[in-house]
C-alpha cells in the first residue's frame, strides 16, 4: 500500500520526474475512494431523513399544551 518506501530514492531524481502523489494506494485506489465517499454521502442523507421524519411525526402526534414552548428554552 505504501507509495513511498524510501524518501532518498523517491526524491533522488530531477524535480520534474519526482512522482507527486504520495498517499497510500496512489494510482490504484482513487476510483474506489470516490465511490466510498458517494456511499457515505447518500447513506448519511437517507439515515438523517428517516430519523428526522420519525422525530417530527412523534412530535406532531403529541398533544402539546399552549405553554410547551415556554419551558423549551436552551440555557446558554
Amino acid at each position: 500500500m505504501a507509495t513511498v518506501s524510501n524518501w532518498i530514492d523517491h526524491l533522488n531524481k530531477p524535480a520534474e520526474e519526482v512522482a507527486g502523489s504520495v498517499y497510500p494506494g496512489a494510482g490504484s485506489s482513487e476510483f474506489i475512494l470516490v465511490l466510498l465517499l458517494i456511499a457515505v454521502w447518500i447513506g448519511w442523507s437517507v439515515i438523517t431523513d428517516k430519523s428526522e421524519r420519525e422525530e417530527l411525526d412523534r412530535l406532531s402526534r403529541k398533544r402539546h399544551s399552549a405553554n410547551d414552548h415556554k419551558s423549551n428554552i436552551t440555557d446558554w
Partner: protein
Amino acid sequence: MTDQLGALTTIFTEFYYWVTVVLMFLIHVGFCMYEVGASRYKHHQHTLMKNTMLIPLVTVTWFLFGWWIYWAFPTGPGIAPSIMTESTGLVLGGGFGGNDLANPTNALMAVNLNDHIMGVFWAAFLLFSWTAASIVSGAIIERITTFAFGVLAIAIGSVFWSIDASWGWHFDGWMLKILGYHDAYASGVIHAIAGGFALGVLMVLGPRIGKFSSSGEPRNIGPRNPWLVTIGLFLIYTGFWGFYAACNVPIYDLGPEYGMEGVTFWTATNIYLTPTTLSGITMNFLMSLSGGLLAGYVIAKGDPFWTYSSGLAGIICASAGNDLYHPIQALIIGMIGVVISYKLHYWVERKFKIDDAVGAVAVHGYAGFIGLVICGFVLNGYPSSGYSVGAMFDGTTYATINPLGQFIGAIIMFLVLGLIPGYIIARVLNGMGKLRIPREVEIAGLDYEMMEAAKDDEKAVSSATR
C-alpha cells in the same frame, strides 16, 4: 519549483490562500451565531445544527462535483469558445470524462509533491460555497426540515453557484466574452444568486406561523439574542475581508500571460487575471462598509439589526467593481445599495407576504443585483479581461464592461441561476412532503424533544444526589 524564486512564489501563494481560508471560516462562525441569535429560543439548537451540517454536505459534494463544474463549464457549454481549447464544448480532459484539474480521482486532488496550489484554491472556493448556502439558511429558519435544507444547500453550494462562477467568475468565462461581465468580489456570483435562490425557496416555503396577521399585516419577529447577532455580524465582516483576499491572485507576472514579449509586470490580480492591489481593495472594503453603516443607521432609524446588516449590504453592493473603484465611489455605491435594498425588503414583505427571517434576500440578493447594475455604469468601457478587447455578443474576444451586459448578468445571477432553481427544487421537495416541518412542531419548537430529554437527565441527576 526548480529555482528559489519559483519556490518562494509558489509557497507564498500556497500560504496566502491558506490564510484566507482560515479567515473565511469566520464567516461561517458568524453566520451560525447570527442565525441562532435571530431565531426564537425554542428553535435554537436545530437552527445551529442546520447551518453547521451544511459544512460537511457541501464539502463532500464540492469534492465530488462542485469543483469539477467550475472548471468544466466556462464555455456554457455551447455559448463561447474557450481560449484554452478553442472549442465551445465542456472543458474536459483526463480520465473518467472529467477535466484534468478537478476530477475527484485526479492525482492533483490529494497530497501531491508537484502541486502546492490545488488544495488551497479548492478550499477557498469551497468556503465561498458554504457562504452561498449559509445565506439561504438564514432566510428560512424555524420552519424548514434539515433534510430539505441539506438538498437546497448542495444545490446552491455545489451546483448553481459553481455554474455561475464558471460562467462569470473565471478568466475564460463566456459571460466576460459575450456580455463584458465584471464581478470582482462576487456581488452577483455569490450574493445575488444566493439571495435569489433564497427568495425562490421562500415563495414555496411560506412565512413562519404568526408572522402575518389575519389582515395580512406583517409582525416583527425580532432577534432573541442581539449580542449573538452583533458578534456574528462582526465575524462575518472579518471573514469577508479574508474573502476579498481570496478572490485575488496574490502575485502574477502579467507580461507573459498577456503575450507581451519582454514585458515583466508583477502584480496582484483579481479572479479574471486583470491587475489590482490588495492595498486598494482594502480601502474600498472599508469605505463601502462605512457607506453601508452610515446609510443603514439613518434609514433604519438606528435599529442595530438593520444597521449591522446594512454594513454588509454596503460591501456587497460595491463588491462587483471594488477592484477598480475610488474609495469614495465605493462608499457612495454602498449607501445607494443599502437604501434600495432596505426599501425593497419591506415592500416585498408587505406585497407578497414573503417572510425573510434575517433579511438575507435584501442584504445579499437585492444589494448584489444593484451592485452589478451600478458597476456597469461606473466601469463602462473598462476591459473585462486582459487577453483581448472586443464587442458584445462576439464571443471570440472579450467585450468591455457595460451597463446592458451587467444588467443581463444580474438577471442571470438572481433569476436564472438563483430564484428559478430555488423555486423548482422547493416545489419538488414540497410535493414530496419533505420541505416544511409540521405545524404542531413549529409551534412547540424544534428543540422540544431535546429539551424534554435534558429535563429528564437533570431530574435523574438530582434524584441521584439526594
